[in-house]
């Protein structure tokens, strides 16, 4: 920690020298600009879902089910994973109260994991400090709700590139690195979860788009809610308390997706986030000073509105670039500055009462006294604020007034239509399978691993179904060729399309 502090002090000294010159001529006692937020323009946001405004968006991220699937009931003592293996898209796995020691992985679309809560008793996934992650999914349209998750070493619930997800009403206690971590997904809701005791972020949205994080209770963790390298995210109506840092909007350098923008943080309680930092050494969050309410690092177009931010000892809102943040690498492909930060009305109570020395030093450069509510270090371009006179601020005197006072026009960034299914266009299917798979072993005339296409054509010219059936369960036909591996992972329709395409090849 000592080394990190030195780094910050050096960086701050540089900023301080610069800022000192910049702010010296400002009149500290000018009349405050008072903005009435009862009326005024609404912030438009960065994501245009639809030009025309229709009925209020219903907050559902998963695709509607048109056919009722099966419900697989899992009782205490049985295996959830066994049910997942049996399930097909459209099915629901209903898990009865009890304790389950397993990792549940879902590499299928449209599966719902629904815990049954009976008189306060939950279906509990217990990793016993031995298992890695509780639930991993990579499918689209996954719902996970009403589960209790505890004592895993990795993550509670982790999504890897699943779109259209809903994760709600889960209790996650003392579970490894992240409580809920959807990564590389589009269109998802994380709501009504109670998460505590996480050594990184309780809720961590990574490299994702169109996300809604609402009504969660997150506490006793290093970070409460983190929006990282993601766009079009709303974080609202959460209770974020007793973490090291409350709500984070980050660009983490070195990740393959380089931006964070259009994030709205509104109507949250961000209280008493003073917990000792217990993050793993070297992790990005291990550099967060305990007592940070909201932390914006390098993220652009972040709106902070109508939060009640109280009792965070370092500061209510901390805005920094990569240069001044400890524990970050550099990335020549990402912009290190948090630009277009928009601070609208917020209630700030008793923040910054035991702030870090760097903040005090910065305050000196602006001849300010008191406990900082808002602290900006490093570069931030085109940022704005309203009613700045209400707060003790550092580094934002030259910010503009915002041209709007609220985000009321934006209900949600959840898509009206869920992300489309991952289906290969039926007219293309034959060609794609032939080129992507068959061509690895068959050429038109020559001998490769399998016999030439010409010979297959001669045998099956009017019988594509014959090929489709054969490739599902091939038998050894030719002494001088190896046996073909089964292609039964392709459905019957796809196999037939590939067969027809193969028979139609001319070269």
């Amino acid at each position, binding site marked *: 920690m000592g080394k990190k502090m030195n780094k910050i002090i050096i960086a701050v000294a540089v900023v301080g020298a610069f800022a000192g010159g910049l702010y010296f001529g400002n009149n500290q006692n000018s009349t405050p600009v008072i903005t009435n937020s009862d009326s005024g323009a609404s912030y438009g946001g960065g994501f245009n879902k639809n030009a025309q405004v229709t009925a209020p968006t219903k907050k559902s991220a998963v695709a509607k089910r048109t056919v009722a699937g099966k419900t697989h009931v899992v009782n205490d003592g049985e295996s959830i994973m066994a049910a997942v293996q049996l399930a097909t898209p459209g099915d629901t796995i209903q898990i009865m109260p009890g304790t389950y020691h397993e990792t549940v992985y879902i*590499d299928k679309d449209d599966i719902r994991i629904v815990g049954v809560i009976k008189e306060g008793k939950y279906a509990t996934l217990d990793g016993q400090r031995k298992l890695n*992650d509780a639930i991993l999914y990579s499918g689209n349209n996954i719902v996970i709700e009403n589960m209790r998750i505890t004592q895993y070493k990795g993550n509670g619930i982790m999504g*890897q590139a699943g779109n259209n997800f809903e994760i709600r009403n889960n209790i996650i206690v003392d579970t*490894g690195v992240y409580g809920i971590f959807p990564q590389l997904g589009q269109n998802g809701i994380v709501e009504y979860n109670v998460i505590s005791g996480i050594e990184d972020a309780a809720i961590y949205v990574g490299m994702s788009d169109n996300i809604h994080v609402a009504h969660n209770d997150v506490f006793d963790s290093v970070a409460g809610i983190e929006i990282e390298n993601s766009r079009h995210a709303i974080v609202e109506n959460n209770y974020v308390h007793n973490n090291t840092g409350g709500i984070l909007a980050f660009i983490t350098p070195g*990740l393959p997706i380089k931006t964070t923008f259009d994030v709205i943080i509104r109507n949250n309680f961000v209280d008493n986030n003073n917990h000792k930092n217990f993050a793993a050494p070297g992790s990005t969050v291990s550099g967060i000073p305990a007592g940070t309410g909201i932390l914006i690092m390098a993220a652009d177009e972040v709106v902070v509105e109508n939060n009640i931010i109280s009792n965070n000892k370092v500061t209510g809102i901390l805005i920094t670039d990569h240069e001044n943040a400890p*524990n970050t690498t550099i990335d020549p492909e990402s912009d290190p500055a948090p630009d277009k930060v928009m601070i609208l009305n917020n209630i700030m109570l008793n923040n910054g009462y035991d702030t870090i020395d760097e903040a005090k030093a910065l305050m000196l450069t602006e001849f300010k006294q008191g406990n900082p509510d808002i602290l900006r270090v490093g570069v931030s371009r085109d940022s704005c604020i309203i009613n700045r006179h209400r707060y003790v601020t550092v580094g934002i005197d030259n910010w503009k007034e915002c041209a709007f006072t609220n985000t009321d026009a934006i209900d949600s960034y959840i898509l009206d239509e869920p992300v489309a299914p991952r289906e290969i266009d039926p007219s293309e299917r034959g060609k794609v399978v032939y080129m992507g798979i068959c061509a690895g072993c068959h050429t038109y005339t020559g001998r490769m691993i399998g016999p030439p296409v010409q010979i297959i054509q001669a045998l099956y010219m009017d019988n594509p179904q014959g090929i489709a059936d054969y490739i599902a369960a091939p038998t050894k036909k030719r002494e001088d060729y190896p046996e073909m591996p089964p292609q039964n992972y392709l459905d019957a329709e796809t196999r037939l399309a590939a067969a027809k395409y193969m028979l139609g090849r001319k070269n």
Partner: protein
Amino acid sequence: MMKLLPLILLLSLMSFITMTLAYGQDDFALAEDCPPSFEFVTVEGKAGVCRLVNLYQFYDSVQGRGLGGTQTSLPEHRDGFTPAQIDLGRYLFFDPLLSKDGSISCASCHQPDKGFSDDLDRSIGVTGEKVGRSAPTLWNVAFLDKFFWDVRAKSLEEQAQGPLFDPLEMGNTPEQLLATLRANTVYLKMFAQAFPDEKELAVEQVYIALTAFQASLISLNSRYDRYAHGYHQALSENEIKGLNIFRSFVARCAECHQPPLFTNNQIAVIGTPEPEGRDFDIGAQKTYAAVENSQKLRGGFKVPTLRNITKTAPYMHSGKFDKLFDVVEFYSKGRGHAVPKDEKLQLHWHIWEPELTDEEMQLIVDFLGSLNDESLTPEIPAHLPSGLPVVDEKYQLRLSSE
């Protein structure tokens, strides 16, 4: 070595004469069809080109970056070369004529049967000395936009000029390369066919043809891919266990070796040790020397793909580890355990102390084996326009001794 050189040249020349006698110009015809998995597409008024067709192209991914889970689209890629350009690239790739003294070809260090890599810790160039780093695999390079371990090239064309003209690698010069190719009647004809709009053979055409060939090295049809497309029986129980450890947030392998390519094509500082006696390699710090805080990239290297990884031992940028198990163990031994005492590195945040058990590490290794797919390995030419031995003499000797 210096004494041997004229002898080698003489031998090369002799074999050249015999070969050209045995194989006339007409024996070398460039392909008119695209390689497997590529569709021949004609655009009006232009020569037809080859476009990759693959199941992954029908999926989506966040921001179109081609990263994520099982059913995720691929990143942008290079294709659109003509069959003739790809085939010319194949001849060039295997032809030792491209090196200073005709002793080695691209394929000497990027051998098809070794995952387009070699079995050396650091490759050996024309001088017989070892070069700075290990030869990386060429599978799926069509999808990359950073090349070399230290990411100093941004395109395959730029990359090709590295080994061609590095004195320790192929040792050639653009002038000599151009002169040699122009003096070869077979190549003159081939280049004219592959680049019909160009007036004469230019050295840039060599880079394009090599790019065209390398962009055809596609490996996306492994047993893992079948699992990813939805056929879960394609992997054994142990391999699925391994996959789940691989992508778990304890091992965190998949955070950088992200499917479907099993690389995120970023730089990572992981603190991997050098073989005994080697100086610390600063990697990407040198590439970004002009950037502020470039010391934060000290010891940083490009995250390599893990496809066909079982074929490319030894591992890491300078071949420190012979076995995949040892690589996995490196990650499990704890953050910074192998960093030299006098080095201060900004280690990647995912490098931590996962404390994997031996069994878990072995399961990861088991899973990695399911990423093998060499079904689109191109045919090695039987003879070359130069008349030189295909790949190189050493390779031919190895073949004849086997």
